[in-house]
């Protein structure tokens, strides 16, 4: 363990050296960005694999078990090869540029979100360095804004495909998002009010004594439900409800274009899990009362994120799908009032606490 911690510290010191030269060398930031994107890309792949395995367990089946040995670890590679070699079809009725642009926009929005996610905070020589591609003062607001771009992607795909199923899915998505971005935003504001900052790093630091899931459980519930809707997972996957709309907005996509769209969705889910960990589950802080047990913060963060992802998968395995009008009802009539109530609560508590 000791050598491991030393190794980690060594790597982090190297990072810090690089960080401190940011202003001088923009290419360092580029390299770091590439690394982080690669890491989150890998994270999304892990999530796809985890989902297939864990969902298989829930549904009493085995899941991937052929490619790459008993646990099917290479299944994703096989799937990727299949997707790359498939014919790329653009339907005759499609609006070509919207159709091509949609997966790119979806993926870009996911990557833009990754940019501000801090993975750890290093204090070296009394100076704080956040392990993030970019540390912004308003990073949480930025996240909320950039995640909204994904809505455009789905609507572009829905309109550009020239298919009625896709169109309905696009409409559904817009209707859903108008209702759910609001409680999502209010929950984020509640957190920011309590932490007195819009910077995710400071929000996490403010949770070193008390996680916000304990300080505002209602906010967590609202945020979790709204996030499920935001990333479009069961019970809120109306935009790709197979039995209703074939594959929803992705109906006309094939080959790697579909692969990108599908992957963007998982990327959003992984980033969503990171956000929920950072703003409600204490981020890289250790467990309350126990502390971080001398384990580097990044491992705490990743462990918690994996737990949240497992929760996503569990919810998917356990619940049926809402109807779209019920989804919108819940958003406007339940989540927004609850989010406002939570804002009031967090303001009061925040005042007392501060």
């Amino acid at each position, binding site marked *: 363990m000791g050598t491991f911690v030393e190794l980690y510290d060594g790597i982090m010191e190297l990072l810090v050296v690089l960080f401190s030269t940011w202003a001088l060398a923009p290419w360092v930031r580029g390299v770091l960005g590439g690394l982080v994107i690669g890491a989150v890309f890998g994270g999304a792949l892990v999530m796809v694999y985890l989902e297939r395995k864990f969902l298989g367990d*829930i*549904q*009493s*089946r085995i899941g991937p078990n052929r490619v790459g040995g008993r646990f099917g670890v290479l299944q994703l590679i096989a799937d990727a090869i299949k997707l790359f070699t498939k014919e790329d079809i653009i339907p005759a009725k499609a609006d070509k540029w919207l159709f091509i642009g949609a997966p790119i926009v979806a993926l870009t929005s996911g990557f833009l979100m990754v940019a501000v996610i801090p993975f750890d905070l290093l204090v070296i020589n009394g100076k704080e360095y956040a392990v993030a591609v970019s540390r912004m003062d308003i990073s949480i607001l930025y996240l909320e804004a950039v995640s909204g771009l994904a809505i455009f992607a789905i609507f572009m795909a829905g309109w550009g495909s020239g298919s*009625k*199923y896709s169109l*309905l899915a696009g*409409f*559904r998505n817009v209707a859903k998002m108008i209702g759910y971005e609001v409680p999502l935003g209010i929950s984020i504001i509640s957190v920011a009010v309590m932490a007195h900052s819009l910077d995710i790093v400071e929000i996490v630091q403010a949770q070193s004594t008390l996680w916000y899931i304990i300080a505002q459980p209602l906010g967590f519930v609202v945020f979790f439900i709204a996030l499920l809707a935001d990333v479009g997972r*069961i*019970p809120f*996957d*109306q935009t790709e*409800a*197979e*039995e*209703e*709309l*074939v594959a929803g907005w992705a109906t006309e996509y094939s080959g790697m274009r579909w692969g990108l769209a599908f992957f963007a969705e998982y990327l959003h889910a992984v980033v969503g899990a990171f956000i929920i960990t950072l703003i409600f589950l204490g981020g890289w802080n250790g467990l309350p009362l126990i502390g971080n047990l001398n384990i580097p913060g990044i491992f705490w963060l990743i462990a918690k994120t994996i737990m949240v992802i497992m929760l996503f998968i569990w919810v998917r*395995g*356990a*619940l*049926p*799908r*809402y*109807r*779209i*009008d*019920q989804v919108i009802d819940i958003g406007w009539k339940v989540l927004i009032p609850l989010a406002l109530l939570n804002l009031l609560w967090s303001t009061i508590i925040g005042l007392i606490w501060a």
Partner: protein
Amino acid sequence: MTHEATQITSPPKPSEMLLHLGPQHPLQPGPFLLDLKIEGETIREAELKIGYIHKGMEKVFEDRTYIQILPLTDRICYLASNSNNDVYCRGMEELLGIEPTDRAKYLRVLTNELCRIQSHLLGIGEYTTDVGFLTMFIYMVRERESVVSLLEAITGSRLNHNYARFGGVAQDLPPGYKEMALKSLGKLKELIKSHDDMMSSDSIYLKRTKGVGTLTAKEAGELGVAGPPLRAAGVNYDLRRLEPYLVYDELDFNVITQTDGDVFSRVKVRLLEILESIYIIEQCLDQMPSGPYKQDVTPYITRPEPGEVYSRIEDPRGEMGMYIISDGSDKPYRFRIRGPAFATAQALPPLLIGTYVADVAAIAASMDSCTSEVDR
């Protein structure tokens, strides 16, 4: 809901759109075309077009000998193949003037009830995936495997059983069958109860199904719908009780009814009927007399006296009837099938009007229609 409005009469207004669900769509058990005129997500008009896999079975039957028809009755609907065998054989027995042996009667009831269980399990399974409940689908298919294995042990095949014969059945029970069946069904009973709990306690599931797609008793009667959709509307109509065939008058069972006639009730009826069928099977296994399971002389070349017969049965999906006219030759003069799925299919478009696109999946699957039988 009006039953006249089952055809799309006018082209869509600017605010409306025609959505062709099918003939290939993930929601469908087989190819049919459901044209929906929708305004936003609301369905204004609906029209069902069938015939994509029409097999002309009734005409084919008129060109086959009576024995040759028997395995073909399996293919009317593979989930109800045992009932179809049975209803045909009972019709022929009446024409030929023979009676199945006592043991064969019990064996037929036994296989019919197993067939009902597996059909209901797959019906519920398909339905649950249509409301987005994939986990329950896989549970149902898993449970169905054990029942199909029980059927396979008796009949030798998993789907198209071809088990009933004129005046008997094809084979006797294999040795040790009773213990095997009781063990397997006991487990199934527990699992079905737990799945029922899981479904009735899920608030999302209740929201999706309660009060959706209500088919009243009157409308069901007008459309000729029988079986679980009719019993879900509160009508105590079950041929096993009203016109006890085989040995149903010696068996104790309840006719399951619900009151609401909505999607939830239809599925609930099926779930409870599975438990009731298990109870019937347990009685069958207890009471089954020993003795021959078939006639001493199997009538291979059958030339029934000229005449006509209509025999009917409580199929898993409703009332299945076969009308056979014999002119004294070895082939039927006229063969007519009254299928339950055809009635449930034609009840679908009126139920859809005023509901949402998402409800199409729930309602269509809860009717548990079978395209193969509709287009027989």
